[in-house]
């Protein structure tokens, strides 16, 4: 069966609601109030489930109509502009994820410096030595300025690293 993004989103939400609904059976009965802790979640989960089904049904219907009319699928019509650069998006996500995992190990300052620099050169490879210097300076400045402004003026203690001790 062909599904567009809508249908896939619907399926994900439907799976989520079924899973969560199963979990509500482990919840205790009501104490002191007329409805228990499972009541409201069940209502909300049901609503989500019903909406997901509607979304899937609409999508299937739309797909059938499209096939009947032999129109090109919507997805291609939508991307009239330049093709999105998903490699960069993925890279950004991965680098961001690694950054977050590294903060408790390397500490805020080192990991921020590395993250900013790496993401800068991922998004735009420096054209000249001068460009390199600017990017490194931006990375150093982001890391240090944030650290001192937050620690010294805004009483936010940023994380220290367990490996680096700073």
């Amino acid at each position: 069966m062909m599904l567009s993004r809508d249908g896939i989103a619907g399926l994900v939400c439907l799976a989520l609601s079924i899973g969560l609904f199963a979990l509500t059976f482990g919840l205790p009965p009501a104490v002191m109030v007329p409805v228990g802790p499972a009541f409201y979640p069940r209502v909300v989960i049901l609503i989500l489930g019903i909406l997901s089904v509607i979304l899937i049904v609409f999508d299937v219907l739309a797909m059938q109509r499209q096939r009947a009319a032999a129109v090109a699928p919507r997805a291609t019509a939508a991307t009239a502009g330049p093709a999105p650069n998903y490699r960069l998006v993925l890279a950004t996500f991965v680098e961001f994820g690694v950054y977050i995992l590294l903060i408790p190990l390397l500490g805020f300052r080192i990991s921020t410096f590395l993250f900013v620099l790496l993401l800068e050169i991922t998004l735009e490879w420096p054209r000249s030595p001068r460009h390199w210097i600017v990017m490194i300076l931006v990375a150093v400045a982001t890391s240090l300025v944030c650290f001192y402004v937050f620690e010294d003026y805004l009483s936010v203690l940023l994380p220290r690293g367990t490996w680096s001790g700073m």
Partner: protein
Amino acid sequence: MKKLLALAFASLISTASYSTVSYSGSYPDHAIKLIVPWAAGGDTDLIFRPLLPLLQKYLGQPVIIANVGGASGTVGEREAANAAPDGYTVFGAHDYIHSVYFGGIIDIKYSDAFEPVCLISSTPSVITVGAKTPWKSFKDLVADAKKRPGQIVVGASLGSTSQYSIALAAKAAGITFKYVPYQGTAPRMNALLGGHIEVADSNLTQKSKVDGGLLRFLANMSDKRTEGLENVPTLKELGYDVEYSVNRGLMVPKGTPAEVINKLNDACAKATKEPEYAKALLLQGTSVRYMDPKGYAEYLKKTDAQTKDIAKSLGLLKRE
């Protein structure tokens, strides 16, 4: 290029000022984190916050508050219980630690997870009613409640101190109420003002609304009349032998060295004696009540037993 990178690294490393972690002898040598398990600006937060600069004065290191709210205060409690017992994480607790254990909300028994450091404050509970209600005194309320048991609507954080206070008074007077969940003093007062609930626990902080005729204080649950509430009778005067107040103190994770606890307690004893702290607390309807680690431990044992009794009578006792 490499040079530049190396330079950048060097500058990063050289700026690490206080990074070493050691607590022997020189405690404290860096900032201390005080975990308050409720949101900033709440009653508990406003009682611990003015203590910070005073503690800092006597400890010589900054004390920084971390509001770790959520799940009736148990998220912060768990974080504090799991922290390293080095004296750099302090837990700002109040009497809820007993009720959340007995109510089955958290599996941490305070005495297994924490060492008491000092008790710092006491906030007497005041039974408060809305201006639209007919009761002018606690006796009126009792008489009415006897006529229609379980019908008068009380707003409270169910299973927490604001319910236990009213429940204790109700038990002493032989009456029953209907409890509706309202978390936090501010929402309870909104509901009282709007007439959506009839009775709630509050404290001196609501005095301006009482003076303005929007609310009425019926009884003070302190053992004797307290500052600012000279016109409000205590339950003891009215012939009910109960008292209830919410008491707050400092604890550290179990296993913290004794000398660290002593240092914290010394600072705490001095800080709570400062007149400016008493002044700050009065704004929160609270008075300073200092106890040393031993006194606090005994006090905790007593309230633990009392909480268990109330939990049992409310049908909330989930474990011994």
